[in-house]
């Protein structure tokens, strides 16, 4: 037995794709559709996650400084606040700046504050941004324990709402992703089964003339490789077009929502799609022909 002629196997794989045209079309279509569904869902969850992260990063804790402290003493607390774990950064706001902001906030009603400019009705304060909103309460307590901090306003309700939303989102994402992957595997394996079932007689004849399992398998490997890679590549192209079209539609007339730029994830997505198509194509055909080999 001499070495295998891989050029022959490759040629046989290509010929088989065309001679079983409909089944090849079905296999590519199913791989394309499943990858497109999973890809679209992934992009959707990435975008939601990004929007939530933006909301998360704008959530702040206000720490009021004891009015007995001088301006320089109040400023010196900042370094201790920044050293606390989970604090991303903090901005010191003097009572004068706070008064200006408050006046602006009141708008037409700002006359209520007239004459109070020189009165110490407001405190110096820190606007503190944190990394993980789920630890808001814990971080607030640590800030409150710093000497010179009179009160902390942690906006716990907003933090809790974001945390709850993120938890629900990740649970839904995992469950739906698992269902989608499961459904895709089921559909793809059935399609592959159908394509190989179509060729059980061919396999039996090959066995009868003395073909080894490897000899029978190689053309299927090449065929699975070509179909899988083709399905993966087409799914990537379709995903790109559909996503950009959708983003264009959403972006028209508004700039409030930042969406994930496809260019930033194009390479990993292309690689994942091709690998997924490759594994499904080769794995599917090799696993399914196994049962027809036992002749």
């Amino acid at each position, binding site marked *: *037995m*001499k*070495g*295998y*002629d891989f050029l*022959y196997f490759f040629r046989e794989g290509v*010929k*088989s794709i065309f*001679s*079983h045209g409909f089944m090849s079309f079905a296999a590519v279509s199913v791989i394309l559709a499943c990858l497109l569904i999973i890809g679209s869902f992934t992009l959707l969850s990435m975008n939601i996650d990004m929007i939530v992260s933006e909301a998360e990063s704008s959530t702040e804790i206000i720490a009021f400084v004891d009015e007995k402290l001088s301006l320089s003493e109040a400023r010196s607390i900042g370094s201790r606040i920044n050293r606390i774990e989970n604090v991303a950064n903090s901005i010191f706001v003097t009572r004068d700046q706070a008064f200006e902001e408050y006046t602006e906030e009141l708008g037409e009603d700002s006359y209520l504050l007239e004459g109070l400019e020189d009165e110490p009705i407001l405190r110096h304060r820190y606007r503190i941004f944190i990394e993980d909103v789920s630890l808001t309460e814990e971080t607030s307590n640590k800030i409150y324990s710093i000497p010179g901090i009179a009160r902390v306003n942690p906006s716990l309700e907003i933090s809790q709402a974001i945390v709850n939303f993120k938890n629900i989102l990740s649970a839904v994402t995992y469950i739906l992703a698992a269902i989608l992957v499961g459904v895709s595997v089921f559909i793809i394996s059935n399609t592959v089964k159908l394509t190989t079932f179509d060729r059980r*007689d*061919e396999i*039996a*004849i*090959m*066995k*009868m*003339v*003395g*073909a*080894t399992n490897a*000899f029978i398998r190689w053309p299927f490997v090449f065929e699975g490789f070509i179909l899988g890679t083709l399905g993966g590549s087409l799914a990537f192209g379709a995903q790109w077009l559909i996503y950009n079209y959708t983003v264009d539609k959403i972006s028209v007339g508004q700039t409030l929502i930042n969406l994930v730029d496809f260019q930033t994830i194009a390479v990993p997505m292309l690689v994942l799609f091709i690998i997924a198509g490759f594994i499904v194509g080769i794995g599917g055909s090799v696993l399914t022909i196994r049962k027809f080999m036992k*002749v």
Partner: protein
Amino acid sequence: MVRFSGVHLTYGNGTKAIKGIDFRVDDGEFIFLIGPSGSGKSTIVKLITGELRPTHGRVIVNGFNVGSLRQSVIPKLRRTVGVIFQDFRLIEKKTVYENVEFAMRVIGADRRNIKERVPVILDLVGLSHKKNRFPHELSGGEQQRVAIARALINNPRTIIADEPTGNLDPVRSKEIIYLLEKINSLGTTVITVTHERDIVNSLSKRVIAIDGGRIISDQIGGYFAL
């Protein structure tokens, strides 16, 4: 050489298909294996090709002990045995040439050998002029000749023809039997399984008659009287 010694075969469902068979076919012989449907003829073919293993006894085919053969060695056994079926079993998507060629590919033959040998064998079976046709474009007799060419291409020591004329008219049947005789005259052992009385009776060959999983007669020039 094919040798059965005290062979029994019982299927998983308990059916006893072969009940103690002994016979020997020497190299270069031409024999008919005859018997009614369900007598065990096809089981014997499957034992020779390694598709089944004996429950008891020994089956030796061209030096291979089928009963103790590892699964990975079965392809090697099959390369010494060319099989021809009643329903031809050609690959519909391959041309006549490709159907014969791929049997050589299976054993790892190089391209030069393939290019030299396939036309010779197609010429032997009289199909050189139809090498680019697909099976569905051929008559039954022609399809069977492609199957014979495929069985012959690797120069097997034994040819087993399982009801080779079952789907053919009398004229085409005689052509196929003539071809098998010709192959036998070139030194290949031929075992022909059939239940066609006329063919058996027209030739003076050794006839092994099977019934109920047992050999009921084994004689040269045996008359098909079942």
